[in-house]
């Protein structure tokens, strides 16, 4: 869709950016030492740290990705919410206190606290960089997706803008400014998501008829109807050719305008009707939408409606939190799917409406990545099980989350801030279901872009709310990216260069190196954010969780709780977890189809999510190598 920039959104976002930059430069003098720069001096209050946890964790994936996935596929997006939140249980009950006790600046400190091993430091630092970069990609993609409606600039401008602002925030005051930016972001995100949810409930649902031809009374089995059964007074049917032969779509040339439109054949019990589809094709570098060049007057129609409410009502009025869900379950929802069609003119993407019962929308298994849930073959379910395992284990392994345990005074503060974080994050994830379903039925969704569902939902309610939510989504990216860049720069400056260049951990030189590293990581993130444009941000974050859970969690848990762990065992576990999960992802069907553009069935691994294989593998490698190297040491 073509978006028109909102001056109010620009003003709100500019105000937030100026405020955060001013705050960052003001706090700069508190970040002169390594302790100040990388850990905010350990002086952040536990409540502020807890809300900052939410600001750190509730990334573009949570806000844009989950809302978008729920808006397009229903309950499956909420599975991410449940999995992301469950991961905090591991963080609180298993990791928080011992990590705080054993580390100083980075999670490599805790891993290496018993060993003083260069191998562990190196492996943990590389792992931190890899996970941070994989997590940075979806944040930057989200930034690019937002800048179009917000400022009217191209995707790459949004990526560069976010990258530049975050680099300035991190370089000026490191973890001090990052903490306060994340606190503000977390607070605003929860507050305005609550406001948005209340407005969704107050609006309720309205039934909207679809653009259609028919219904046509049947003279034979409706399911067998094809192009030869139709004739129109105002349009001419085009001949079936190429992939069009095997589809249940008709192409029609309208007599008046000459435009070619596409219609989906939907058989009923005693009739057949045609529902209007939307198409996108690239011809000679030009985007052709619904048969004509894309322009302000010829653009995609916004989608996302209920076709039928329970009892045939036209509208519900305000609903409560439970009646909202039960009403949706009793309705017929119009979800949109897409499919590529090839003919002699080239490829065309057809976006077609799919009438779906509300009961199905609120069950798992609609999203393509989750389709194995509904398969009769138990092997097909491994992808889903693997993802849910990675989400459960991944949170407590994310470097930018782990370093936040060093910004508070003691273990009690680490524990209490995690409880506050769980409260904020859990509440937000409950809201995601309402925001996603609200977007699904808002009549405002861009059929070509899942990530825009939440801001467009806000626009369907009011322009000022759209301005605030868009600006907030942009700042969502700022807060998370800042945390990731601090974590990555800490790994480079403290763990890698500090070790190899012999810089003392508390040395001011570490801070200088950290700032240079922050700039470099920020630039890399900008480039990747431009290259990965168009991918669902929640899907990409799933990769980061899998790598983090495979590379970091086994090593962390075993170092904290198994006295038999050796430095070689820990190093081998990190390397094995990281390399195996990364290799699995790069050889998976999802990456084949969505990144390389190759057929998914040619992939070399049987399912896309690696966690169910690579997490146990990393545990096993740690135990085996530790037993072998300990026995060797004892014997030698």
């Amino acid at each position, binding site marked *: 869709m073509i978006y028109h920039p909102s001056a109010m959104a620009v003003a709100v976002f500019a105000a937030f950016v100026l405020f955060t930059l001013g705050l960052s430069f003001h706090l700069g003098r508190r970040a002169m030492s390594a302790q100040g720069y990388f850990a905010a001096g350990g002086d952040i209050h536990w409540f502020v740290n807890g809300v900052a946890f939410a600001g750190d964790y509730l990334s573009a994936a949570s806000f844009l990705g989950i809302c978008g996935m729920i808006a397009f596929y229903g309950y499956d997006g909420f599975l991410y919410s449940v999995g992301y939140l469950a991961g905090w249980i591991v963080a609180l009950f298993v990791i928080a206190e011992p990590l705080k006790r054993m580390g100083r600046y980075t999670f490599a400190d805790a891993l290496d606290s018993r060993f003083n091993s260069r191998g562990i430091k190196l492996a943990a630092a590389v792992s931190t960089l890899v996970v941070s970069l994989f997590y940075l990609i979806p944040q930057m993609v989200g930034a690019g997706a937002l800048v179009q409606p917000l400022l009217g600039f191209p995707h790459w401008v949004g990526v560069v803008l976010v990258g530049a602002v975050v680099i300035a925030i991190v370089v000026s005051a490191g973890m001090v400014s990052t903490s306060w930016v994340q606190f503000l972001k977390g607070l605003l995100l929860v507050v305005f998501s609550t406001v948005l949810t209340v407005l969704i409930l107050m609006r309720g649902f309205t039934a909207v008829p679809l653009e259609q031809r028919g219904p046509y009374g049947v003279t034979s089995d409706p399911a067998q109807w094809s192009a030869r059964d139709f004739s129109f007074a105002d349009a001419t049917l085009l001949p079936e050719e190429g992939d069009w032969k095997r589809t249940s779509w008709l192409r029609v040339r309208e007599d008046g305008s000459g435009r070619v439109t596409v219609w989906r054949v939907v058989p009923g019990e005693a009739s057949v009707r045609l529902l209007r589809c939307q198409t996108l094709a690239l011809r000679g570098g030009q985007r052709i939408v619904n048969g004509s060049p894309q322009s302000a007057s010829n653009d995609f129609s916004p989608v996302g409606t209920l076709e039928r409410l329970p009892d045939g009502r036209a509208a519900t009025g305000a609903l409560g939190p439970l009646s909202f869900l039960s009403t949706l379950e009793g309705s017929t929802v119009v979800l949109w799917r897409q499919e590529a069609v090839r003919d002699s003119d080239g490829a065309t993407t057809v976006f077609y409406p799919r009438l779906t019962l509300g009961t199905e929308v609120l*069950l798992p298994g609609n999203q393509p990545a989750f389709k194995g849930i509904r398969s009769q073959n138990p092997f097909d379910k491994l992808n889903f099980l693997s993802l849910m395992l990675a989400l459960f284990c991944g949170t407590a392994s994310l470097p930018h989350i782990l370093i936040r345990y060093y910004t508070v005074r003691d273990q009690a503060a680490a524990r209490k801030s995690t409880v506050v974080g769980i409260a904020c994050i*859990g509440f937000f994830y409950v809201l995601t279901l309402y925001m996603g379903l609200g977007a699904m039925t808002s009549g405002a969704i861009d059929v070509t872009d899942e990530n825009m569902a939440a801001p467009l939902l806000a626009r369907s309610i009011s322009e000022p709310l759209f301005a605030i939510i868009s600006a907030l989504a942009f700042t969502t990216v700022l807060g998370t990216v800042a945390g990731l860049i601090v974590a990555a720069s800490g790994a480079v400056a403290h763990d890698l260069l500090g070790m190899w260049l012999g810089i003392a951990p508390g040395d001011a030189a570490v801070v200088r190196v950290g700032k240079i590293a922050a700039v470099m990581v920020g630039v890399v993130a900008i480039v990747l954010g431009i290259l990965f444009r168009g991918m669902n941000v929640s899907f990409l974050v799933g990769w980061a969780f899998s790598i983090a859970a495979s590379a970091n969690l086994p090593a962390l848990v075993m170092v904290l709780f198994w006295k038999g762990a050796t430095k070689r065992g820990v190093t081998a576990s990190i390397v094995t977890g990281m390399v195996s999960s990364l290799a699995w992802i790069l050889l998976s069907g999802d990456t084949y189809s969505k990144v390389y553009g190759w057929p998914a069935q040619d992939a070399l691994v049987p399912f896309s999510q690696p966690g169910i294989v690579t997490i146990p593998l990393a545990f096993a490698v740690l135990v085996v190598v530790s037993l072998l190297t300990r026995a060797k040491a004892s014997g030698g």
Partner: protein
Amino acid sequence: MIGSPGDAASSRARVGFVLFAVYLVVYATFVGLCAFDWTAMGGFRLGGVNLAVLYGFGLIALALILALLYDRLCRAIDLRIPAAGTRDEEAS
């Protein structure tokens, strides 16, 4: 009986493991139901809402309840050892 900050840390860790195990069982059941009996998630209803949504909300609520319980139990342990949970313990 808790006699030192180190003992307090061990006690807190034990409490954490027990609560972790409780949540793990509930979470694993949820994931198992979704994977192997997804139609059951639409079967049971309460207040017009299906089991899939109720269970999802329940898992989020349970996480907060267990987190609050853990904090309360840890504070009770800390009260028995005044130095527990502070920087003094880190130094020990």
